[in-house]
């Protein structure tokens, strides 16, 4: 065992154990650590918003004569009208601008990336057959993918009762969805275990010095 000499590692280890104590039951150590986390992370955010955004992007240029920045300053300040009941409706202005712009920008981007390109990846084309790098098996995989996507989409079509052909296709769709979810669950297990491993490596490696 080679215990750490750095006091910060001891602090980190004790905070880690405080969070892990929640596994037994909720307790004051866990609550304390939780509140420290929220306090420190918000303090960290404030630091960077001030040094990286408000000073170089707003205050410095404004005081150097770029007066057009008064417009975003006023619009941003309207957020605080939320606390004044008589004029609280003004908060809708910065919200409307933000939501409006983001919504507008995402429409063509979403159509291209999430619909058109995905359809291109699904259709039965020589390029898609070759993309599998599996020779003639690529044709079979592309056909299965094409059928699978259509069947999954048919499963989510609820405007008609799932009878006849629609019943068959939606059953096939369910099979694809279940296999996909199973695979996703398998990966999720690995993901969660990885997070645990990270913390145990810190405790047993950095703090206790039991592992290299």
């Amino acid at each position: 065992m080679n215990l750490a000499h750095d006091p910060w590692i001891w602090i980190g280890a004790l905070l880690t154990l405080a969070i892990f104590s929640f596994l037994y039951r909720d307790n004051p150590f866990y609550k304390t650590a939780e509140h420290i986390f929220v306090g420190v992370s918000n303090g960290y955010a404030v630091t960077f918003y001030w040094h990286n955004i408000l000073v170089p992007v707003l205050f410095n240029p404004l005081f150097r004569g770029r007066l057009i920045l008064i417009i975003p300053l006023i619009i941003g300040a309207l957020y605080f009208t939320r606390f004044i009941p008589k004029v609280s409706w003004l908060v809708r202005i910065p919200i409307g601008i933000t939501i409006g712009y983001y919504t507008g920008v995402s429409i063509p981007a979403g159509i291209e990336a999430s619909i058109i390109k995905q359809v291109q990846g699904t259709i039965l084309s020589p390029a898609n057959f070759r993309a599998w790098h599996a020779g003639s098996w690529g044709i079979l995989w592309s056909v299965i993918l094409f059928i699978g996507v259509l069947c999954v989409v048919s499963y989510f079509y609820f405007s008609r009762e799932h009878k006849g052909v629609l019943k068959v296709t939606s059953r096939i769709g369910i099979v694809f969805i279940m296999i996909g979810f199973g695979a996703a669950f398998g990966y999720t297990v690995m993901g969660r275990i990885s997070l645990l491993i990270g913390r145990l490596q810190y405790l047993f490696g950095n703090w206790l010095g039991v592992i290299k």
Partner: protein
Amino acid sequence: MKRTFPLILLMLFGVFGILPSFLPHPVIQGADEFVRNDLLRIITAFALVLGLGSLLRLHFEKIKRHAENWPYSWILVITFFITSIIGLFGGISGHGILPTRIGSFPFDIQTLYLRIEVPLGATMFALLAFFMASASYRAFRARSTEATLLLSAAFVVMIGILPLGDRISHRLPAFAQWIMDLPLVAGQRGIGFGIALGGLATELKIILGIERSWLGGGE
């Protein structure tokens, strides 16, 4: 007016957001740059200030009313102010007007982040491994054909992606990869189309003023 004016603003900025994708004219691009680089950046910064203000207000109320767990609110407020002061006056790299070191013991903002926030944040999510194990044991049942399919795929992937899978059979990792490349893609793509089309419909409803929930209550 109180609802109409913001709706009109949203529609104008919504249409303006779409334009640069189709009109590469310098005037449009220049205006787009101003909206992105100046207007939205500064508005976003104020949104954070608002969020922080709301958080602090909530906890000061808890302290004032002596609500449940109110002493912990003091911990949050105190750590927030200490961290903010160290960051604001100590600087990002620890070379501000406030000294951020006592002998060989540093307490600059980067140290606070790496030594306090990282262990806490990482451990909170590490708890999920335990909850997932417990939930899998209690709730994961092969009650139907579909559930059995899901379970089987999960087992194949859980073993196949690891070196153990390669030891069991050289075909197992390839089979696990095939499950990711084909059935998973088919399932996720079908779901993705639904989400994309639904999202597109919602975005159009927002821009056209049909969807107004963002306005909130009141006049």
